[in-house]
């Protein structure tokens, strides 16, 4: 490789790092006190994955997504899931319209899913049938309405939220469906200083404006760069060992996993680890993935992919504890 080409690549990397840094800063300007969360959301975006956010109401989950969409100049839509929401409310319907000349035609009215960034608020309140409509779109990147397949324009990014407080009358996503989310992020409660800042800055006259940092095409380019990041076999082996260690009967699983895990992570977790690891490496300005990148993203990737048994529920063992045990063992 020539020196010039090498330089170009280095420039590309540096520019990517800068852009992503600017994006994070822009979001954090409006969405206060959640730097780590913002960074993870950006990683998920770069890895072309969907994210499940879990946290009590009022923590700004909707704000985060809307600011992200504004900063990226992407179409944003918000779907408030309710028990009576039907799949057609998400995907859209075909309606019969009569023209002025008396003719009638079938016209497709796209649903809110036809956006780049979709916020599925309180996804656990909708019925499983409605949930599956969204999950299908997330996986396939297209929807089928009246027999006609309609693709969703890239980038397509879903941020779903779950409210852990009101579980009465809800339909929590089954574990098999949770597997489709790249990350499951817990939205932490802001600290004292952050709360103070939130109160002062959001209740005044001045309103913060979100400026676009990058375009849709630039984002797509960045997503492409992520997939070019180099992974050494040894690093991939470490990721594979981590996934295997979540199974009680395989690999070097710790005792805790053997006792409390019914089903471990699937191969999707392995894909997620490498994709997210690459995104982390890009954020760090590296052209290669390191073991630390894998270990950094592992908790968010694994916590919703391990199915715990009854003993774990009785002994109040959390998935976080299990993930830490796995990472300590490998």
């Amino acid at each position, binding site marked *: *490789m020539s020196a010039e*080409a*090498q330089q170009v*690549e*280095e420039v590309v*990397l540096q520019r990517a790092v800068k852009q992503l840094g600017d994006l994070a800063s822009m979001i954090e300007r409006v969405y206060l006190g959640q730097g780590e969360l913002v960074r993870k959301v950006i990683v998920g975006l770069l890895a072309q994955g969907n994210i499940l956010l879990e946290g009590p109401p009022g923590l700004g989950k909707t704000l985060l997504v809307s600011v992200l969409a504004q900063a990226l100049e992407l179409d944003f839509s918000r779907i408030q899931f309710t028990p009576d929401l039907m799949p057609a409310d998400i995907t859209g319907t075909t309606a019969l319209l009569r023209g002025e000349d008396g003719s009638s035609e079938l016209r497709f009215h796209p649903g809110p899913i036809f956006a780049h960034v979709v916020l599925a608020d309180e996804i656990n309140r909708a019925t499983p049938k409605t949930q599956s409509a969204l999950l299908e779109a997330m996986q396939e990147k297209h929807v089928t309405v009246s027999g006609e397949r309609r693709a969703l324009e890239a980038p397509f990014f879903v941020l779903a939220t779950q409210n852990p407080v009101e579980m009465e009358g809800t339909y929590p996503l089954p574990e098999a469906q949770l597997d489709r989310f790249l990350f499951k992020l817990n939205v932490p409660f802001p600290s004292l200083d952050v709360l103070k800042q939130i109160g002062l800055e959001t209740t005044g006259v001045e309103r913060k404006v979100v400026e676009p940092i990058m375009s849709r095409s630039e984002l797509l380019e960045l997503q492409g760069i992520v997939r*070019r*990041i*180099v*992974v*050494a*076999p*040894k*690093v*991939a082996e470490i990721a594979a060992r981590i996934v295997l260690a979540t199974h009680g009967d395989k690999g070097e699983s710790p005792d805790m996993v053997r006792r409390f895990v019914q089903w471990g992570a699937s191969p999707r977790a392995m894909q997620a680890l490498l994709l997210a690891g690459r995104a982390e490496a890009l954020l*760090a300005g*590296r*052209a*290669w*993935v*390191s*073991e*630390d*990148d894998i270990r950094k993203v592992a908790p968010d990737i694994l916590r919703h992919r391990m199915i715990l048994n009854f003993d774990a529920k*009785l002994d109040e063992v959390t998935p976080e504890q299990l993930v830490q045990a796995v990472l300590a063992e490998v």
Partner: protein
Amino acid sequence: MSSGEIKAFIRGQQRVYMRRRLLEHGAHLAGWAMGIAALIAFVNLVTGGNLVLTTLVSSVSVAWLGFRGWRLHRASRASLDELAVRLDRHGATSNLLTTALAVERGDAHGDEEFAMLAMNQARRQLTSLDFAHFAPVRLDIKPLVVGMVCAGTVLVLYNSSANAYLDGIVNRAYATTTRSTSPEDEQMKKKLAREEEKAKKEQPLTKVARERLEQDARALESLAKEETLLTKSAKESLEKAAKALREAAKEKKSAREALKHMAQAKRQLKELKKQSDKGEHLDKELLQKLGDKDLAEQIAKAESRKDRQKLGALARELARRLEKDSAQDMNAKAQRESLAKALEEAIKNQSKKGAGQQGDSKQAQASVGEQSDAKKSSEDSRLRRKSDRDSGDASTSNAMTLDDSRQLAQLLRQNESEPSEDGARDKLEQLSRDGEQSGERGEVSRTAQQKMQRIDEEKSEQMQRARSSQKGGDTPPPCESEDLEDCMVASMDQQLRSRGKTGEQGGQQGKSGQGGKQGQGQSGKQGSQSGEGGQSEGQGGGQGQGEGTHPASSGASSKAASNGISRGGTPSASPGGGAGGRDGKQGLSRDSSASSTNWVKSQWKDGGRTIVRTIKSVSRGERHTVGYKDVHETYEEIAEEKTKQEAIPLKRRDFIRQYFESIRPE
């Protein structure tokens, strides 16, 4: 750096790494080797140069050491990739070397340009990073210290002064364990034994020994006085022996002197024995001078003392007299008669003093009966028969009584543990019958009869108890069936009976209609359909078929309904589904006139039976409901009992118990 330089660099680091590991292992194994050498030397010292043992210990130890070394070496081996990871961790290079090595090898995944970027980055960093301390030597000194201590100890032990001390310890220990003694020790032992014996002989006799000697002396003196027929020499021998024993029994005599006197007495008695063996100890003249009565007495005495020699001499004298007398016919009869009388009386007197009847009397009579005439012989034979009868009867009666007692004791013991055994009872009956026949076994018979009475009483008590328990109280018998459904059915039956409900039998079996129509929602319709099919109805009719397809709509209440549980068919086929939907409580009232349960065959091909409960209120057009409390009562006991039988881990039992408490109705 050129291509392959990353690999070469890592190889160089690998050599450094392995050298350091070898150093560590060497120190570790050296310590162990010293300890093993000390062990071998110690074994050699203790066993006194036992080659076999020493060789064995050496071989095992060296083999173990070799194996340990191999294990250590194997564990410390690191591939190039693993070493690269170590170097990256040490240098905090974020797996740069690992990636560069993979790129160099050609098995990295990713964009080629980015791969070259990584390579260049690695090359730049390699020159600037210091890997000198990436795998420092860590010596484990514990084995070294222990080994040195062991070696030093053994060296000290091999020192001469310490060796002698050890020799002494070892020899004593060895002697104790092997129980062997040297010739000097043996001699010493014998000498000690002799001196001990000597000392014992100088000591005076014990009081008990002296008393015994006195006793023996008195016995000899009395014998000399009593035996009037002894010769002079025999008497003298007896007296001398008695005197010698008295001398020995004197207080101040030592054991040695006493032994001398006793030896003297022994010699005298030996002489006497020689005479008596030859029969020369009795004075023949005195014998001949004895009267018939005296002779008879002497015979009786000799016979009672079992003095065969004397008896023989007396019998010979008697025979001589009889022979002599037989020549003179006139006096022979009178003499014989007087002899026989005297002998008889003497024998009687002796037997009163404690002699046995059998054998002795026969022997005495036999010696007389040799020369008897017909009358005497008949008299003798009469005596003989009487003697036989007495001894035979006594032994027979003794044997019979003893046998029965034993039998009874055995039966009593047996009946204590198994009172209802018929075989034992029969035996007791026989015993009592036999006892009635023969008065001598009355005691046995009475005991057997008492025992029989006791057995009969116990049996009747047991039967009464069984009858009363079968009638059934409020508490149902514990369910032993493994099938939960069986238990539930049985419990339901029990409850119905105990409440005194007498429902109608399935008079409406085979008819459809009302019950089915009362069904609500989906399952209600199905209920009516199957009701028309001729099923017996329950709350909503429709057993087996319809409800199976809509388990949810069959309803919790209908499942728990008093119709019980369906068997076979689909598992979710719960009867009484006509109660409808999830909320099958649509205006239904309680019923108190339910009948006992009936069985109805399911309409399913492979279905089993199902329970039907007829509710009168339904036939009157009333609505019916079954309270949760009623249902709960039916199932609570069974469920909890079954829960106890299940293998639930101890630490989860509380949780299960809390669950059941939470669903208990208020």
